[in-house]
């Protein structure tokens, strides 16, 4: 059973007396309904008023007023640990999907929230994650309009998994897509890379490392607005999540059948991320980000886009990091003046030590 989260109810929400999540909270029975009403409905009540149905219902004319196409996306979030410096799995779950919509040039509008909870999860943890989701949704200006709750037996999942799907409206005339990329186009990024990946690696605790790093988790739709308003012709945008900057650029090159040449000196990387990479033999180009955007624009608009990005709070450290070329490789002009290929990795980077 799915409950639309935005139940227009006058009655006061039930009190949640349970200290931990049990299988009852996923049973479809009253314990589940109480959880949904006491927690999710309260937190996410910003949405439009729908009845207590198994789906949200959205007038199409409200969407057609904003653009001509729907963007539709989904991501599951399984981050470990679920709470880390700079955010938690809830922040990620909202921003991740907001960003996947935003980079299509869409105005993100509505999100779903489907939780898989492990039996025994402290209720307090769930409260915190749900509060983060509500705050992130508010910040990004989206509504969480429908959801689902499943509970699996202890050991059947790792604390919390969240799936968010999202829809947004694509502005008429704005159609960023990797296939539009052409030689000569300019590649930008909105700030230092690798902070999220580095933060999570450290937060797991297995390496016994300490840093002051924080995840860069943030919504990018505001920044995209700024980009699109000066450059509706933007060729391509993508958030550089799993696989990092290198992976996104390889996807771009492959889709558009072009090469991309990066300038190492211009790619912003924070010192502690550099330190972690040196210590563990990693490459920051492949570290995950959760608030970093790669943008490709026609060369004549690069400076204007850069200026627009830098004047947005999410892009103050934006940089032009390279240019699209003929050819088929993503390559890097190293700080040493040489050139090397930046290929896709097969897999996650593992520490290289001995």
């Amino acid at each position, binding site marked *: 059973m799915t409950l639309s989260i935005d139940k227009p109810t006058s009655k006061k929400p039930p009190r949640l007396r349970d200290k931990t999540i049990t299988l009852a909270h996923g049973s479809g029975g009253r314990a589940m309904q109480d959880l949904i009403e006491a927690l999710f409905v309260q937190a996410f009540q910003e949405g439009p008023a729908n009845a207590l149905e198994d789906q949200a219902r959205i007038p199409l004319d409200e969407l057609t007023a904003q653009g001509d196409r729907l963007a539709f996306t989904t991501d599951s979030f399984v981050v470990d640990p679920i709470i880390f410096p700079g955010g938690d799995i809830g922040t990620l779950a909202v921003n991740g999907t907001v960003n996947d919509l935003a980079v299509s040039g869409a105005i993100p509008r509505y999100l779903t929230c489907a939780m898989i909870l492990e039996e025994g999860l402290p209720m307090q943890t769930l409260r915190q994650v749900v509060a983060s989701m509500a705050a992130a949704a508010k910040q990004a200006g989206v509504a969480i309009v429908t959801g689902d709750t499943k509970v699996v037996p202890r050991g059947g999942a790792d604390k919390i998994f969240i799936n968010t799907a999202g829809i947004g409206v694509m502005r008429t005339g704005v159609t960023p897509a990797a296939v539009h990329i052409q030689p000569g186009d300019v590649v930008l990024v909105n700030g230092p890379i690798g902070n999220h990946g580095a933060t999570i690696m*450290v937060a797991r605790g297995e*390496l*016994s*490392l*300490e*840093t*002051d*790093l924080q995840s860069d988790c943030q919504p990018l739709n505001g920044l995209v607005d700024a980009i699109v308003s000066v450059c509706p012709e933007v060729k391509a945008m993508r958030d550089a999540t799993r696989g990092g900057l290198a992976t996104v650029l390889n996807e771009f090159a492959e889709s558009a059948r072009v090469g991309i040449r990066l300038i190492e000196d211009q790619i912003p990387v*924070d*010192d*502690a991320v*550099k*330190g*972690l990479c*040196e*210590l563990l*033999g990693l490459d920051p180009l492949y570290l995950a980000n959760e608030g970093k955007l790669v943008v490709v624009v026609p060369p004549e608009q690069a400076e204007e886009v850069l200026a627009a990005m830098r004047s947005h709070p999410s892009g103050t450290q934006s940089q032009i990091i390279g240019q699209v070329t003929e050819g088929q490789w993503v390559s890097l002009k190293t700080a040493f003046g040489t050139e090397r290929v930046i290929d896709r990795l097969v897999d996650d980077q593992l520490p*290289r*030590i*001995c």
Partner: protein
Amino acid sequence: MCLGIPGQILDITDAAQKLATVDVSGVRRQVNIACIVDEEHPVESCVGDWVLVHVGFAMNRIDPEEAQITLDLLAEMAEVHESLAPI
């Protein structure tokens, strides 16, 4: 082989076990400093030293003078090159 990276000793966390905190460009970790402690270099004196960090151990102390000699030589060779380069 054998990835090693310079780091600076911030403090001694356990003198008996020869454990110290090392900083590598903003990343901190506890390392064993047994290999750099001797009569001339008692544990406490190591704070501030630059060491080569490998798999959780400070393997050797970095000699700042030797480093400078190398850099000076390189600078000199680069200068000679500059002066020879076509104008």
